[in-house]
């Protein structure tokens, strides 16, 4: 009845530079989420090292990891993970509660991020009063509020329809244009097509690491599809 040892990831060696927009692809169970969780300091590696911004985070204690997550990483989840019965503004403000950022700046930062995701007027709405796409945009604003070096998004469009998916992807592209590093897990090649670089996993191994051919780019203002031949 002994448990079988399974390497969710094996022999992965990747470097992601500031300003990149990476899509992580692969079949179910291939290790995409595991890879993201290692980078995001939500999970710890059994062997090997993870470096973020020059620090070897794989040797950090829980408190230091919490600080790294707070200051350097913004998470976007498939299920949004917003606090229920809590306004969009309060949800976005949440990471500031655990930060060193002075309280006097909180409101301004929160509203700025909400505006960045086009939800300024919805600041006092609760998640139940927002559509899926709007909820995901609140979650993105929350990921942005601490000015992270990178945004990690595990299937951020998994719970959204095609149109809303386009909206969210356009937003990511816009953020990336402004310099935010984005790593995104997805099943769908159409979604991965928005990224600049694509990693493909299979059975815990990295099988492909290439720049996106035929990258799709969306104009955020009218959501019209613009093909961008590279």
């Amino acid at each position, binding site marked *: 009845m002994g448990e079988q040892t399974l390497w969710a990831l094996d022999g992965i060696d990747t470097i992601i530079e500031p300003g990149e927009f990476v899509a992580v692809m692969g079949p179910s169970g291939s290790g995409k989420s595991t890879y993201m*969780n290692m980078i*995001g300091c*939500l*999970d710890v590696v059994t062997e090997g090292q993870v470096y973020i911004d020059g620090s070897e985070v794989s040797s950090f204690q*829980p*408190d230091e990891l*919490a*600080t790294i*997550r*707070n*200051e350097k990483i913004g*998470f976007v*989840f498939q299920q949004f*993970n917003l*606090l*229920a*019965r*809590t306004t969009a503004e*309060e949800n976005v403000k*949440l*990471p500031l*509660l*655990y*930060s060193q950022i002075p309280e006097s700046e909180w409101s301004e930062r929160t509203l700025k991020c909400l505006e960045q995701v086009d939800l300024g007027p919805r600041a006092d709405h609760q998640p139940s009063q927002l559509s899926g796409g709007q909820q995901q945009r609140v979650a993105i604003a*929350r990921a942005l509020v*601490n000015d992270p070096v990178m945004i990690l998004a595990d299937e951020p469009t998994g719970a959204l329809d095609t149109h809303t998916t386009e909206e969210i992807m356009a937003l990511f592209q816009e953020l990336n244009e402004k310099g935010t590093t984005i790593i995104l897990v997805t099943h769908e090649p159409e979604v991965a097509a928005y990224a600049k670089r694509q990693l493909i996993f299979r059975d815990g191994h990295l099988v492909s690491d290439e720049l996106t051919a035929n990258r799709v780019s969306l104009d955020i203002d009218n959501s019209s599809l613009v093909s961008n031949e590279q």
Partner: protein
Amino acid sequence: MNIFKLFKIALTALTLNVMRSILTMLGIIIGVSAVIIMVSIGAGAQQEVDAQLEAMGGNVLIIFGGWNNRGGGGTAAVATLEDGHANLMLEQVYGVEAATPYVLGKSQLIYGNLNWSADIMGTTNDFFVTKNWDLESGRGFTAAEMNSGEKVVIIGSIIKDELFGASDPIGQSVRVGTFNAMIIGVLKAKGPDTRGDDQDDVAVMPLKTVRTKITGISKSSPNSVSYLEVKGSDTVSMAYVEEEITSLLRQTMKVADDKEDPFRIRDLAETVESRAETQAIFNTLLAAVASVSLVVGGIGIMNIMMVSVTERTREIGLRMAIGAKPDDILNQFLVEAITLCGVGGLIGIGIAFGVTYSMETYFDMVTVINPEIVFISLGFSALIGVFFGYYPALKASRLQPIDALRYE
């Protein structure tokens, strides 16, 4: 993270589920209010006892005669309590400040066309001392009035109200049964005594007057009295005085060594105090039961906090993902538990004040809320919050971020 932020987070979390928060606090609310109410009733009863003791004016013994030793060699006359014994006690027992004999009767008092039936008390001026009574107006008895059994009377406030209303009774003549007596004084109103008997419905006359004109002189024991009262000085033990009086009376009454006392001595203060003690034990017991309900309330808090941690595992995971340290999570849940208990405690205090107030207003009970018990119960309920909140909070803080996030 500072304490204010923590309280803000806790309050926000608790107000998201107001009904559950209130139900969770119920145990603490009931516990705290029950403890305070019980202790307040106890303190009120103690205050009443103190007031009664104060009204008695300190150390007073009451000596009843009439316990004739059956089959004894002496005659009944010898075994009777007499007014002369009062002087003997005053002279021979160290520590006796005053000794007062009483002869009790009952008579109709008539003034004009009003009449009133009252207890008549024949005594000496010493009753002012042993009963700790005061005059509202007028004077006490003179030596001459005492010696000749003059027809003078000092009336209690109820008799004054019934027969004279607002007019001044001093110097008026009132009919007492078969004779007329002059009113020389009015007693200050005192309210009911320790047993609830009204002390203001009484007329006081010189001992000799009552004996000769109302009760009549007994042939076998012409000097007998209903009872004696002895007041001891503050510096002497009443047990000692009681012992001395017992041996003095046995000697005077010539009671054989193998016979029981033909009288009974009662220490009024002791009676009141022992009754108060019984009451205090009872109240302590009730307060103890109430404290148990506080602990049960605490377990209720723990239960809900455990449920809350499980229910909010994904929230905990999210908070960790966005930068909450394990201690932040621990503190958040701890502060939530403490807030639940603290607010519950405050509500409990409010209810206790309300209940004791209505007990005073509608049921005429005396209650005393002392500040210590309020602070103690509030502190205690916060402590319960820490104690019963710690385990669920620790459990929450030990979660791995990824496990908490994945929790279904």
